[in-house]
């Protein structure tokens, strides 16, 4: 049933029980859903079954069709050569694509795109459109498709022909969103999950932007067969992203203070194979900090293991409830509209088993390959001071924070304690561009802040004792 990630071809077609990201009208709405024959999604005022999405390729665009048994999603015809076809392409990219197509000749000739029309004659008095709401409803009843309604709206618009070609496209796009909504089915991977959350629900992921997340993974050298120690209070996004990079090798140890693990709900959104899920373990930091040898402590450790295992079960059921209003019904909508709960529940395999003593002992013996912290609620310096000794010699680490000061203090203390070298605080900056013939410029809106990262390399503690003064 579940596709293996090692054969990367197979993960490109959906299956029953698989998690998908549905992008409605080019990011207007983003919905995480689990595909099942019973799952339904409300688009506009129509309730559509997600059944037609099963067994389809990721990247497919669906449109809402009126079938005899009600509205249903069907793959939109992609007509590459016909730039006027509204059903192809995607949202604003479609818009820029089309403008591109129309202007290719001009650019080839080295001409500047000169627009002969302008908006001096346009008056916004709400009389331009002669089709009434009743007219459109009547068309619908007669089975008109979204595109036909849009064409009718254009034909009956007194001002459409006077608009510039660019605002004509804008007009089309606006009408398309309303009368012919499109659903793009995307793979839920670290990139798309992070972007979706950052756009719709940034506080849930601690305002961790996708470029910042990518830097954390690089700076901590996340690679196959590594054992990565993680402190993740960003909903499991970091844990999932690390597990995705490990591909079913090594371990990601999701560690936590106290008895209750931090929420890892986002991990379930990734389509991680069972093999990968098994590599996500949880452990209280107190267990990791216990010395390995002392038999007395091991005894205590076992006792508290049993205790907190029962605790774990409670917390597991708690987190299940938590999930119920997000993803247990098969759909987690991070947009604004409501969705109809699906009838059937399909659960992702369980990730985040409690790390057994043998594994913890192995970590204590070898040290972790690296450390990544994304825990804005915890004091950075005390956390790093405790966790750094758990890292193998020469292991890199990367600490994320939304504020600069905790990282500056931590960096200063690491320097004073000669615990690490290559220390650096970096702040990524990401700017997107609109690229159009003769109209290329940075996008008007951008995220002004993606957080800070403190990175460095742990050095041998023995080196300190023999270090001469500099």
């Amino acid at each position, binding site marked *: 049933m579940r596709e293996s*990630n*090692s054969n*990367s*071809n197979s993960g490109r077609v959906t299956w029953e029980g698989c998690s998908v990201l549905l992008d409605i009208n080019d990011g207007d709405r983003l919905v995480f859903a689990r595909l099942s024959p019973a799952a339904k999604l409300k688009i506009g005022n129509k309730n559509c079954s997600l059944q037609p999405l099963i067994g389809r*390729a*990721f*990247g*497919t665009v669906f449109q809402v069709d009126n079938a005899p048994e009600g509205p249903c999603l069907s793959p939109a015809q992609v007509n*590459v050569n016909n730039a006027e076809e509204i059903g192809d392409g995607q949202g604003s*990219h*479609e818009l820029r694509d089309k403008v591109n*197509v129309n202007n290719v000749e001009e650019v080839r000739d080295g001409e500047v795109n000169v627009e002969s029309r302008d908006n001096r004659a346009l008056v916004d008095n709400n009389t331009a459109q002669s089709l009434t709401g009743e007219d459109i409803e009547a068309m619908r009843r007669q089975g008109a498709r979204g595109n036909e309604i849009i064409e009718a709206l254009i034909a009956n618009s007194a001002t459409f022909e006077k608009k510039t070609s660019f605002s004509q496209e804008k007009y089309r796009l606006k009408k398309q969103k309303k009368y012919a909504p499109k659903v793009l089915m995307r793979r839920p*991977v*670290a*990139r798309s999950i992070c972007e979706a959350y950052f756009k719709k629900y940034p506080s849930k992921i601690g305002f961790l932007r*996708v*470029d910042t997340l*990518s*830097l954390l993974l*690089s*700076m901590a*050298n996340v690679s*196959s*067969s*590594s*054992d990565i120690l993680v402190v993740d209070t960003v909903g499991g996004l970091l844990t999932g992203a690390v597990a995705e990079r*490990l*591909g079913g*090798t090594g371990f990601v140890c999701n560690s936590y203070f106290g008895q209750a693990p931090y929420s890892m709900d986002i991990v379930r959104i990734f389509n991680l194979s069972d093999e990968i899920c098994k590599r996500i373990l949880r452990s209280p930091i107190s267990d990791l900090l216990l010395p390995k040898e002392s038999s007395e402590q091991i005894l205590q450790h076992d006792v508290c293991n049993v205790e907190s295992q029962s605790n774990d079960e409670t917390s597991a059921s708690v987190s299940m409830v938590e999930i119920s209003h997000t993803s247990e019904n098969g759909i987690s909508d991070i947009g604004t509209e409501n969705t109809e709960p699906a009838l059937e529940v399909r659960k992702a395999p369980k990730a985040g088993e409690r790390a057994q003593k043998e594994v913890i002992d192995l970590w204590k*013996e*070898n*040290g972790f*390959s690296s450390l990544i912290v994304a825990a804005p609620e915890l004091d950075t310096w005390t956390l790093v001071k405790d966790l750094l000794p758990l890292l*193998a*010699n*020469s*292991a890199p680490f990367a600490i994320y924070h939304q504020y600069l000061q905790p990282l500056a203090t931590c960096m*200063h203390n690491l*320097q004073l304690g000669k615990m690490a*070298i*290559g*220390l*650096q*605080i*970096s*702040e*990524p*900056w990401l*700017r*997107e*561009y609109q*690229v159009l013939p003769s109209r*290329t410029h940075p996008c008007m809106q951008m995220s002004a802040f993606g957080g*800070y990262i403190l990175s460095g*390399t742990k*050095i*041998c503690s023995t*080196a300190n004792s*023999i270090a*001469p003064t500099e």
Partner: protein
Amino acid sequence: MDLNTDKMLASDPARKFSFNRTISNGDLVIVYERHDNMKAVTVSEGSVLQNRFGVFKHSEWLGKPFGSKIFSNKGGFVYLLAPTPELWTLVLSHRTQILYIADISFVVMYLEIVPGCLVLESGTGSGSLTTSLARAVAPTGHVYTFDFHEQRAGSARDDFERTGLSSLVTVGVRDIQGEGFPDEFTGSADAVFLDLPQPWLAIPSAAKMLKQDGTLCSFSPCIEQVQRSCEVLQISFTDIRTFEVLLRTYEVREEKLESTQRNGDGSNDSLPCKRRQCSDGGNVIRSPISSVMARPCGEARGHTGYLTFARLRCLI
């Protein structure tokens, strides 16, 4: 090449970062002087390393853990670090302009490269990105990278041998702009990365190589290159997006700051400290307060290149 030496990736579980991992003959180590001064050295028992801190004998490094501080004959010191793709990017020999960490990280994430992926790249250049691509596809994937410059391809091959990535990377000599990618990869690539002067010439071939919904990235320093690439991309790609990603780094230091605590009515102030007038006329004094402060470094890379991403359009 001795297969039992420590290399960049831990694909062999016995080779991974560990408290017990020590330096042995033939290992690649990164010699760290300062954060802006590092060097890659292959340990060879009879050799010495000479720098401004003195002479370091390789023989004295053997058996020491990675991350050790090592002293020279004159008492100067360096650290010996285990190589990672990030450190390698800082020490590799530049045969071309290279990609740095911000672009590299973003490319790997945005191309959705995970273990098991098949990735095509051109040109190879100095292999900075290739090293990170190899890490991302390990242990079961593969990177096929092409450069039209035979000598450069050869040097890259030597580097991948040195960093222990040969089993993950194949370097081919080929003019991708002129000939396209080899037909044997048709429909099999998860991701394609282009760093070419005229990427638009290679885009049709890249589209042919990609799996459905596969991803492409083109890196270009100039906006005119981006412009032309985007025109060609819209024929068979969707989700076309262009980004610029940069890093701002910060300096952290502890500074002594003068306190400006107000002192009662200001008349009984007998301390011989420097004094200043508050805006409201109260006298201010006190011993300095220590404070850790951060500010952006004065200089930074202002531009590397534009990253244009696209996804092969899904035909049903």
